[in-house]
Protein backbone atom coordinates (compact mmCIF):
# COMPACT_ATOMS: atom_id res chain seq x y z
CA UNK A 1 0.00 0.00 0.00
CA UNK A 2 1.60 3.28 -1.12
CA UNK A 3 2.11 6.19 1.25
CA UNK A 4 -0.04 8.44 -0.95
CA UNK A 5 -3.02 6.09 -0.74
CA UNK A 6 -2.63 5.69 3.02
CA UNK A 7 -2.33 9.43 3.52
CA UNK A 8 -5.34 10.03 1.25
CA UNK A 9 -7.36 7.62 3.40
CA UNK A 10 -6.13 9.35 6.57
CA UNK A 11 -7.44 12.70 5.26
CA UNK A 12 -10.81 11.41 4.00
CA UNK A 13 -13.54 13.90 4.91
CA UNK A 14 -15.98 12.75 7.56
CA UNK A 15 -18.99 12.71 5.20
CA UNK A 16 -17.19 10.34 2.83
CA UNK A 17 -15.97 8.19 5.72
CA UNK A 18 -19.52 7.89 7.01
CA UNK A 19 -20.75 6.82 3.58
CA UNK A 20 -18.04 4.15 3.46
CA UNK A 21 -18.98 2.92 6.96
CA UNK A 22 -22.63 2.71 5.93
CA UNK A 23 -21.66 0.67 2.85
CA UNK A 24 -19.43 -1.58 4.96
CA UNK A 25 -22.23 -2.24 7.45
CA UNK A 26 -25.03 -2.70 4.93
CA UNK A 27 -23.02 -4.49 2.24
CA UNK A 28 -22.84 -7.95 3.74
CA UNK A 29 -26.53 -8.29 4.70
CA UNK A 30 -27.44 -7.01 1.23
CA UNK A 31 -25.10 -9.56 -0.39
CA UNK A 32 -26.61 -12.38 1.69
CA UNK A 33 -30.13 -11.22 0.79
CA UNK A 34 -29.15 -11.21 -2.91
CA UNK A 35 -27.72 -14.71 -2.53
CA UNK A 36 -30.86 -16.05 -0.83
CA UNK A 37 -33.09 -14.45 -3.48
CA UNK A 38 -30.99 -15.78 -6.37
CA UNK A 39 -30.95 -19.30 -4.90
CA UNK A 40 -34.67 -19.50 -5.52
CA UNK A 41 -34.24 -18.72 -9.20
CA UNK A 42 -33.18 -21.04 -12.01
CA UNK A 43 -29.86 -19.19 -12.50
CA UNK A 44 -26.64 -21.16 -12.82
CA UNK A 45 -24.89 -21.75 -9.47
CA UNK A 46 -21.64 -20.21 -10.70
CA UNK A 47 -23.45 -17.14 -11.93
CA UNK A 48 -25.13 -16.79 -8.53
CA UNK A 49 -21.76 -17.08 -6.84
CA UNK A 50 -20.25 -14.50 -9.20
CA UNK A 51 -23.13 -12.08 -8.54
CA UNK A 52 -22.82 -12.63 -4.79
CA UNK A 53 -19.09 -11.89 -4.90
CA UNK A 54 -19.71 -8.83 -7.06
CA UNK A 55 -22.18 -7.44 -4.53
CA UNK A 56 -19.71 -8.28 -1.77
CA UNK A 57 -16.81 -6.32 -3.33
CA UNK A 58 -17.86 -2.86 -2.01
CA UNK A 59 -18.14 -4.32 1.50
CA UNK A 60 -14.66 -5.84 1.36
CA UNK A 61 -13.19 -2.62 -0.04
CA UNK A 62 -14.88 -0.37 2.52
CA UNK A 63 -13.94 -2.69 5.39
CA UNK A 64 -10.34 -2.51 4.22
CA UNK A 65 -10.46 1.29 3.97
CA UNK A 66 -11.89 1.40 7.51
CA UNK A 67 -9.09 -0.84 8.69
CA UNK A 68 -6.45 1.37 7.02
CA UNK A 69 -8.01 4.51 8.47
CA UNK A 70 -7.88 3.28 12.06
CA UNK A 71 -4.78 1.11 11.75
CA UNK A 72 -2.33 1.63 14.56
CA UNK A 73 -4.79 3.68 16.59
CA UNK A 74 -7.58 1.24 17.32
CA UNK A 75 -5.20 -1.65 18.05
CA UNK A 76 -2.70 0.57 19.88
CA UNK A 77 0.16 -0.48 17.59
CA UNK A 78 1.14 3.08 16.72
CA UNK A 79 4.29 4.03 18.57
CA UNK A 80 2.82 7.12 20.20
CA UNK A 81 -0.86 7.39 20.99
CA UNK A 82 -1.59 10.70 22.68
CA UNK A 83 -4.50 11.50 24.96
CA UNK A 84 -6.82 12.43 22.06
CA UNK A 85 -6.08 9.13 20.31
CA UNK A 86 -6.82 7.23 23.51
CA UNK A 87 -10.04 9.16 24.14
CA UNK A 88 -11.15 8.58 20.56
CA UNK A 89 -10.34 4.88 20.83
CA UNK A 90 -12.41 4.60 23.99
CA UNK A 91 -15.33 6.37 22.29
CA UNK A 92 -15.02 4.09 19.24
CA UNK A 93 -15.11 0.94 21.41
CA UNK A 94 -18.05 2.29 23.42
CA UNK A 95 -19.98 3.09 20.23
CA UNK A 96 -19.12 -0.36 18.78
CA UNK A 97 -20.59 -1.95 21.89
CA UNK A 98 -23.77 0.13 21.55
CA UNK A 99 -24.11 -0.70 17.84
CA UNK A 100 -23.49 -4.39 18.47
CA UNK A 101 -26.03 -4.44 21.31
CA UNK A 102 -28.60 -2.70 19.09
CA UNK A 103 -28.03 -5.21 16.25
CA UNK A 104 -28.27 -8.20 18.60
CA UNK A 105 -31.44 -6.88 20.25
CA UNK A 106 -33.01 -6.19 16.84
CA UNK A 107 -32.02 -9.64 15.53
CA UNK A 108 -33.38 -11.35 18.65
CA UNK A 109 -36.63 -9.37 18.46
CA UNK A 110 -37.13 -10.15 14.76
CA UNK A 111 -36.44 -13.87 15.36
CA UNK A 112 -38.82 -13.88 18.32
CA UNK A 113 -41.61 -12.22 16.33
CA UNK A 114 -40.98 -14.61 13.41
CA UNK A 115 -41.14 -17.67 15.66
CA UNK A 116 -44.17 -16.56 17.69
CA UNK A 117 -46.06 -15.94 14.45
CA UNK A 118 -46.21 -19.68 13.89
CA UNK A 119 -43.15 -19.94 11.67
CA UNK A 120 -40.32 -22.36 12.18
CA UNK A 121 -36.63 -21.63 11.84
CA UNK A 122 -34.31 -24.30 10.54
CA UNK A 123 -30.82 -23.85 11.90
CA UNK A 124 -28.79 -25.34 9.07
CA UNK A 125 -25.66 -24.23 7.23
CA UNK A 126 -27.68 -21.82 5.08
CA UNK A 127 -28.73 -19.86 8.17
CA UNK A 128 -25.80 -20.45 10.43
CA UNK A 129 -22.89 -19.69 8.07
CA UNK A 130 -23.99 -16.13 7.13
CA UNK A 131 -24.48 -15.30 10.83
CA UNK A 132 -21.12 -16.82 11.71
CA UNK A 133 -19.44 -14.92 8.87
CA UNK A 134 -21.06 -11.71 10.07
CA UNK A 135 -19.68 -12.28 13.58
CA UNK A 136 -16.19 -13.14 12.25
CA UNK A 137 -16.04 -10.12 9.94
CA UNK A 138 -17.87 -7.40 11.82
CA UNK A 139 -16.96 -7.86 15.46
CA UNK A 140 -13.25 -7.19 14.86
CA UNK A 141 -13.99 -4.50 12.24
CA UNK A 142 -16.62 -2.52 14.18
CA UNK A 143 -14.23 -0.44 16.34
CA UNK A 144 -12.27 0.70 13.25
CA UNK A 145 -15.50 1.57 11.44
CA UNK A 146 -16.79 3.46 14.46
CA UNK A 147 -13.53 5.41 14.74
CA UNK A 148 -13.89 6.39 11.08
CA UNK A 149 -17.50 7.37 11.83
CA UNK A 150 -16.90 9.60 14.87
CA UNK A 151 -13.64 11.38 14.12
CA UNK A 152 -14.06 14.94 12.89
CA UNK A 153 -12.17 16.21 9.84
CA UNK A 154 -8.49 16.82 10.33
CA UNK A 155 -7.58 20.48 10.70
CA UNK A 156 -5.81 22.02 7.72
CA UNK A 157 -2.05 22.15 8.20
CA UNK A 158 -0.68 25.43 9.50
Amino acid at each position, binding site marked *: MSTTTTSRIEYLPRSRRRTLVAIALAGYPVAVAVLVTLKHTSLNRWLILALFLLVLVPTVVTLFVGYLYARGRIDGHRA*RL*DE*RDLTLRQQAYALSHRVLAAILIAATAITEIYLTSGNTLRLDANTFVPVLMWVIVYIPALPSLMLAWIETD*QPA*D*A
Partner: protein
Amino acid sequence: MPDHQRQVHNRLAVLRAERRLSRKQLADKLSINYQTIGYIERGDYNPSLELALTIAELFRLPIEAIFSLKPMTPLSEEIFRDPPVEPR
Protein backbone atom coordinates in the same frame (compact mmCIF):
# COMPACT_ATOMS: atom_id res chain seq x y z
CA MET B 1 -15.88 16.38 20.77
CA PRO B 2 -18.98 14.68 22.27
CA ASP B 3 -22.14 16.83 22.17
CA HIS B 4 -22.60 16.83 25.95
CA GLN B 5 -19.15 18.34 26.50
CA ARG B 6 -18.72 22.09 27.00
CA GLN B 7 -16.30 23.71 24.60
CA VAL B 8 -13.10 25.07 26.08
CA HIS B 9 -11.99 28.16 24.18
CA ASN B 10 -8.29 28.85 23.77
CA ARG B 11 -5.65 31.18 22.41
CA LEU B 12 -3.29 28.44 21.33
CA ALA B 13 -3.16 29.46 17.65
CA VAL B 14 -2.34 33.10 18.54
CA LEU B 15 0.35 32.13 21.04
CA ARG B 16 1.87 29.64 18.65
CA ALA B 17 1.97 32.21 15.86
CA GLU B 18 3.45 34.80 18.22
CA ARG B 19 6.28 32.45 19.12
CA ARG B 20 6.66 31.30 15.49
CA LEU B 21 6.04 27.68 16.34
CA SER B 22 4.55 25.24 13.87
CA ARG B 23 2.00 22.71 15.07
CA LYS B 24 4.62 20.02 14.65
CA GLN B 25 7.20 21.89 16.77
CA LEU B 26 4.70 22.57 19.55
CA ALA B 27 3.43 18.99 19.42
CA ASP B 28 6.98 17.66 19.74
CA LYS B 29 7.58 19.82 22.81
CA LEU B 30 4.36 18.47 24.33
CA SER B 31 4.93 14.86 23.19
CA ILE B 32 1.59 14.68 21.40
CA ASN B 33 0.55 14.25 17.75
CA TYR B 34 0.56 17.44 15.69
CA GLN B 35 -3.04 16.87 14.60
CA THR B 36 -4.09 17.12 18.25
CA ILE B 37 -2.81 20.73 18.35
CA GLY B 38 -5.04 21.50 15.35
CA TYR B 39 -8.04 19.85 17.00
CA ILE B 40 -7.46 21.85 20.21
CA GLU B 41 -7.05 25.12 18.30
CA ARG B 42 -10.25 24.47 16.37
CA GLY B 43 -12.12 23.66 19.59
CA ASP B 44 -12.82 20.09 18.50
CA TYR B 45 -10.93 18.58 21.39
CA ASN B 46 -10.71 19.71 25.02
CA PRO B 47 -7.26 18.92 26.41
CA SER B 48 -6.90 17.14 29.71
CA LEU B 49 -6.02 19.22 32.76
CA GLU B 50 -2.52 17.78 32.64
CA LEU B 51 -2.02 18.80 29.00
CA ALA B 52 -3.55 22.25 29.58
CA LEU B 53 -1.18 22.82 32.53
CA THR B 54 1.80 21.61 30.48
CA ILE B 55 0.85 24.04 27.68
CA ALA B 56 0.53 26.89 30.19
CA GLU B 57 3.92 25.98 31.66
CA LEU B 58 5.48 25.87 28.19
CA PHE B 59 4.19 29.35 27.29
CA ARG B 60 4.95 30.59 30.83
CA LEU B 61 1.46 31.96 31.17
CA PRO B 62 -1.33 31.39 33.67
CA ILE B 63 -3.72 28.71 32.43
CA GLU B 64 -6.65 31.17 32.30
CA ALA B 65 -4.70 33.29 29.79
CA ILE B 66 -4.78 30.35 27.37
CA PHE B 67 -7.96 28.42 28.14
CA SER B 68 -11.40 29.68 29.08
CA LEU B 69 -14.98 28.45 29.19
CA LYS B 70 -16.07 31.78 27.69
CA PRO B 71 -15.08 32.89 24.19
CA MET B 72 -11.70 34.63 24.27
CA THR B 73 -11.43 38.35 23.60
CA PRO B 74 -8.57 39.38 21.30
CA LEU B 75 -5.30 39.80 23.22
CA SER B 76 -4.75 43.31 21.82
CA GLU B 77 -8.12 44.37 23.19
CA GLU B 78 -7.25 43.01 26.61
CA ILE B 79 -3.89 44.77 26.68
CA PHE B 80 -4.94 48.15 25.31
CA ARG B 81 -8.46 48.33 26.68
CA ASP B 82 -9.09 51.67 28.45
CA PRO B 83 -8.90 51.17 32.21
CA PRO B 84 -12.12 51.92 34.08
CA VAL B 85 -12.35 55.61 34.98
CA GLU B 86 -11.72 56.21 38.68
CA PRO B 87 -14.39 58.36 40.35
CA ARG B 88 -12.97 61.71 41.56
